[in-house]
């Protein structure tokens, strides 16, 4: 009897923790449909008014475009560099391996504020202006350790014997890469790209240091809008971002399953 009630308390506690975790997210989505000028309770109906207003808000659309380009470039560079490094760690033994691995994962433990100041100081010393390129290289540094962790975990399963088998059957190195290595790598590449895109798309703290008025991202824009007060428009923007960053991996998962089934 005691055991049962103990377990149900644990379950109840877990449910409450979930409520705590998801309440802010749910409230953003709910309030974004509030037709009132001030985005708060009580709701006086349901409308898409703020979404339409967003669709005509030129600065936010520009910020969206910036964020998408930034996220895509970050994903491409970070994943390319990350996959190469992960291959080295998974496939080869060399002196200083552990030290190098720790060095490459270190940015996770360094506060973004420090990364932000450091890179900005460096750029200043080189007498370079803050440009979009600064955002891209900054985001590559931010996302690289995560890509490395994710990709390394996926690569461990890919044994070298597959490639050796292809080569012993007469494939040249290029054919081996194209027909064996690349298809095996694809899930890791996609995971790395998705992850780095999302981190870049959502990043705020370091981006506040690197962005200028000309190249604002969506989170930086939201940060600026919050200065006035919270509004239904910010909630609507939040809803769009939530749908985008959750929808992309879901869609990717669905598509990849569809494609593998079609094979």
């Amino acid at each position: 009897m005691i055991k049962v009630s103990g377990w149900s308390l644990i379950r109840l506690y877990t449910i409450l923790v979930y409520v705590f975790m998801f309440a802010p997210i749910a409230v953003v989505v709910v309030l974004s449909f509030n037709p009132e000028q001030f985005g708060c309770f009580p709701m006086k109906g349901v409308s898409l008014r703020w979404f339409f207003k967003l669709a005509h808000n030129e600065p936010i659309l520009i910020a969206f475009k910036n964020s998408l380009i930034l996220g895509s470039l970050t994903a491409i560079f970070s994943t390319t560099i990350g996959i190469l490094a992960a291959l080295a760690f998974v496939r080869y033994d060399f002196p200083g391996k552990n030290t190098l691995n720790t060095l490459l994962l270190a940015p996770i433990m360094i506060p973004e504020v420090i990364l932000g100041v450091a890179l900005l100081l460096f750029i200043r010393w080189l007498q370079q202006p803050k440009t979009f390129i600064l955002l891209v290289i900054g985001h590559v540094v931010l996302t690289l350790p995560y890509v490395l962790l994710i990709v390394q975990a996926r690569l461990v399963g890919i044994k070298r014997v597959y490639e050796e088998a292809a080569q012993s059957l007469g494939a040249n190195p290029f054919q081996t890469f194209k027909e064996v290595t690349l298809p095996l790598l694809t899930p890791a590449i996609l995971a790395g790209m998705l992850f780095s895109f999302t981190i870049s798309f959502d990043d705020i703290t370091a981006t506040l240091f690197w962005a200028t008025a000309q190249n604002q991202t969506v989170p930086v824009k939201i940060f600026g809008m919050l200065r006035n007060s919270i509004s239904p428009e910010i909630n609507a923007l939040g809803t769009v971002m939530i749908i985008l960053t959750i929808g992309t991996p879901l869609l990717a998962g669905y598509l990849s399953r569809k494609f593998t089934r079609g094979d």
Partner: protein
Amino acid sequence: MKNKLWKPIALLSPAVSAVFLLLVIPVGFIVVYSFWLRAPSGADIPAFQFGNFAKFFADFFYPSILLRTIRVSFETVALCLVMGYIPAYFFYRSKTRFKAILLLLIMLPFWISFIIRTMSWINILGDTGLINHFLVKLGILSSPIGMLYNEGSVLMGLIQYLLPFMILNIYVSLDGIDKSLLEAARSMGCTEWQAFKEVTLPLSLPGVSAGSLLVFVLTAGTYLPPMILGGPGNEMIANLIFKRVIGTLDWPFGSAISVVLLSLLLIIVWTYNRYLGINQIFKSLQ
């Protein structure tokens, strides 16, 4: 051996040079700049002096922000432990078929914008927010009470951001426990509680300590929750750095504060690594 080495070197060189050029050298610049002087005109003058650090520790204003950062970090760790252990234990013991989905849900916030999750606490705790609305409507309160812009609301934002890290670390540790140890304890006459206290809890401590370190380090460097959910009295050290560097363009002093923050984190991580080993941290992140 030697002729085989070029391959890993070639594969690693882009990543290593990126981190070296864009992280190691720039952080080195922070250290160098922290000794520089700032001319009244605003120009930076190369120097080697400790004036910036002396300024930081000159009166109680800046050290109090440092102490607050440390205190809030400990509070966040404690609250994440209290709120995180039980759900992690639930995942470990539960036999529900929704377990995979529940675990995915806990990781879902990683995919949702940090600023959205943080600012939404205004929707919940604000004067016209969810809680005040219901308390007034139910007649418990006659008028809304201020729940925002204090340390409590900052902690809400911090916990919401960091709890998944804690839960995952503890869960990974619990999941690695050989279940036959528990059965052995039970068969030797331990009660459920005794088995937990004597077997499960001690074996989950690596996850607890790894999660605590991660949460501490991430809290100590946090900028956004105190900025959005805190008042003037809730500033943390990252806010101070931002204000000095972006606000007043005082690069040498901003660098010195950054060095103070980095030293704090280094001391914490070094102590941890010395006694517990750092590699556990990266396990859960995979």
